[in-house]
């Protein structure tokens, strides 16, 4: 139990580090002088000290919504597969619960965008609704097909089963599910082929448009929620699609897990440097590809058993 709580605490703590690492790595790859990888913590503490100003048009939603964006993601952190063997984990939570909690958080983020009563907020919210409506079916299909391969519908139990007995005979459908989940990881976290997290140009932004009017502590909470979302997706990817290294002692297994998270972050950074942002109406093509792969993984598992 203590390892369980400690690992969740460590994952929350490491969350801003991962996003700053992606940023620093991108700057190194573009031959710029990189930002410090502690920049995420610095921004957080700076925003905590700053004055919080609310727009006159906002209602009470702006005061409540940032907490409701963060809290479902914190709840999902408790349902992740264990990082260390022998640690406590929640075994019965399935793909629907996790996807539902993540989309609850997205729902409050969209409300927050609408509530600021600026033109950008509404635009960002409609785009986010458009993207997340396409992400959810693919995500449910992907996690279900992995859970079926692992022999248990619970995500936590599936992670443990995969680590204990890797399904070598289902390698093909496992691979398709992995490709699909990686596209979803990129899409849901607003990384480059879908959304550029760094610009504030009106045509390109999705996530930034919704949080444009926020200041101070509310902005700090939303940024923390964004980084925790990345950690959730990265650790789901790490424990479902790279299920090895759990059998070592607690500290070593945890370090291996952290290395896996940084490996995923490096791949995301490489992808961001090498691709251009897609036009908004091309996004369904990419997410359609994710749905095709998710479906393909299910049917190769069912029909061929491969």
């Amino acid at each position, binding site marked *: 139990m203590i390892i369980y709580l400690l690992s969740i605490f460590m994952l929350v703590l490491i969350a801003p580090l991962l996003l700053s690492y992606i940023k620093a790595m991108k700057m190194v790859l573009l031959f710029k002088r990189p930002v410090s990888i502690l920049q995420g913590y610095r921004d957080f503490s700076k925003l905590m000290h700053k004055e919080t100003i609310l727009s006159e048009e906002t209602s009470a939603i702006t005061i409540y919504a940032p907490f409701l964006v963060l809290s479902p993601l914190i709840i999902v952190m408790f349902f992740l597969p264990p990082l260390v063997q022998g640690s406590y984990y929640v075994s019965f939570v399935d793909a629907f619960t996790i996807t539902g909690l993540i989309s609850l958080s997205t729902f409050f983020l969209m409300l927050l965008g609408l509530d600021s009563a600026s033109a950008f907020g509404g635009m960002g919210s409609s785009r986010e609704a458009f993207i997340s409506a396409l992400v959810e079916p693919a995500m449910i299909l992907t996690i279900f097909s992995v859970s079926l391969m692992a022999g248990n519908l619970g995500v936590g139990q599936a992670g443990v089963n995969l680590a204990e007995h890797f399904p*070598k*005979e*289902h*390698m*093909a*459908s*496992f*691979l*398709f599910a992995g*490709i699909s989940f990686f596209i979803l990881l990129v899409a849901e976290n607003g990384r480059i082929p879908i959304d550029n997290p760094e610009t504030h140009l009106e045509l390109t932004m999705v996530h930034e448009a919704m949080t444009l009017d926020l200041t101070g502590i509310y902005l700090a909470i939303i940024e923390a929620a964004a980084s925790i979302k990345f950690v959730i997706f990265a650790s789901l990817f790490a424990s479902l699609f790279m299920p090895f290294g759990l059998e070592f002692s607690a500290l070593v297994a945890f370090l291996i897990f952290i290395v896996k998270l940084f490996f995923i972050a490096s791949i995301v950074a490489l992808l961001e440097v090498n691709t251009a942002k897609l036009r908004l109406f091309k996004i*369904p*093509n990419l997410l*359609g*590809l994710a*749905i*095709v*792969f998710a*479906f*393909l993984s299910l*049917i*190769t598992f069912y*029909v*061929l*058993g*491969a």
Partner: protein
Amino acid sequence: MVDFLIGLFLASLIVALFTTRLFRLLLWYSMNSLMLGILALSIGNSIDDKAMIITGIMTIVIKAIGIPFVLKNLSQKFHFVRQIIPEIKVQYAIMLVPAILVFTFYLSEPITHMIHTNANYVAISISSLFLSLLLMMEHKNVAPKIVGFLSMENALFLLGITATNGMPMLVELGIFFDLLMAIVVINLLFHKEELKV
């Protein structure tokens, strides 16, 4: 390992169906052939077949490096349209691709009773044959049609190495020679295409 490589083979073919740029299509074709070559090498290594290893190396050299390079040079030389938009809309392709796969998986079920080892590889080879046919159908330009033709050949090769543990060496060399001849003929076609414009 074989399952993993076949998965990558099918995945690169499906991604090739959705690409809208010619050079990216050639890259995915090259990946497809590379996976095929590595597959031939690993199967040849496991059943200890020298001929299969030679074929694998030739596949990597000719199909994964040679043909995409030649096609890229040709399309640069003749100033081909590099933006290739599929005629079939993506919404329909999303439904069509899984439908083709399910259909062929059930279509090949009678055949799988005859082959005892790795029956599902036959299904994947036939479905990739249909997918390459779709790649040929959904484009109007010459260059993607050629890539579709070449990946159809890849699918047949996959069928050859997985279902029957390798065709005779002479047949495979003949196929490679055919491919090279096809590239020469394609070159002539490109000339003709240029004259028309």
